[in-house]
């Protein structure tokens, strides 16, 4: 399976886009992964689920604006060069 660096970049962009489109109210709260459900236990044992929710929330917050730029660039490049 010959990977190139370009395919890694493509996969990364697709994954980050997928995480960024998870809507807070419509989807994450419905399945119990919302922000208000993660405060839970103060201790030193956050658990996997809380870590995942924090990770998703932070990725969405941080990558929102850069993703706009990266996606625009990708769209233009794909339109021009196929």
């Amino acid at each position, binding site marked *: 399976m010959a990977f190139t660096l370009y395919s*890694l970049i493509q996969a990364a962009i697709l994954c980050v886009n997928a995480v960024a489109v998870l809507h807070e109210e419509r989807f994450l709260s419905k399945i119990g992964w919302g922000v208000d459900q993660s405060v839970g236990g103060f201790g030193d044992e956050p658990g*996997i689920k809380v*870590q*995942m929710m924090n*990770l998703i929330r932070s990725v969405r917050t941080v990558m929102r604006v850069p993703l706009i730029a990266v996606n625009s660039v990708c769209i233009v490049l794909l339109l021009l060069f196929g």
Partner: protein
Amino acid sequence: MDLPHHGYRATAKPRARAAPPTGDSVLFEDTSSAAPGLNSQGYYTPGYNMGAPSNDMQGGANVNNMFTDPMANAAMMYGSSLANQGKDIVHKEIGRFMSVNKLKYFFAVDTKYVLKKLMILMFPYTHQDWEVRYHRDTPLTPRQDVNAPDLYIPCKFSPEVLGLCASTALVWVIIEVLVMLLSLYLLTVHSDLSTFDLVAYSGYKYVGMIFTVLCGLLFGSDGYYVALAWSSCALMFFIVRSLKMKILPSISSDSMGMGSSAKPQLRLYITVATAVFQPIIIYWLTSHLVR
């Protein structure tokens, strides 16, 4: 132009400064033939400062005295000051992305360490003590501690033979390091494994890979499989023993075993999964070269 300048700068530093910091002597002196007992104060200090343009100007002045022509002198000094400025800019930019001090720690090796480490990689079954030794909270450099991870061996052995093979291997390294980081973060394992440590441990499989491919080319398909089996076992053993010290909680500590928040078997799964992943990757990346 870069390489002699860098080496020249390294030797100019201890001469130019009045009291050289102890971090210098550890990182730049050749300790291959020195006895291990004399490292009483030559330990790596994390606050090692790399920028010192004034030293280079002094070092440059030593060379200029050889030229009698004043024009050549002026041109030489101008050129060296330009080079210094360029180097400072490059160092500053690189220093924003990754800490160069930490990178230096991984390359402070000597020949004795490299030989011992290669022996341990290929034949780890007789090595007794796998604990990484510390000195006042900072890990020891690879020169003083055989168990410390280094980036010199992975750099020497990483596959740059074919372009496509190299980029595939590079992609797998990146994926593997990201997966390791993600799993360590999710399970809130509070270990002192930095990103570069993980890169170092991932890079050790290239030693086995090169050895396997060599045997495959020399001895045909049978030699390939024998070498693959040998290096897989050695590498799995090596990875499990090395990472066990870092990830799994130390049993011998006191009764406050809450250092690990996750269940111990999850940590065990991580270590074992990492170890099992190595021979799979070696086989995946090299089998098409030997058929």
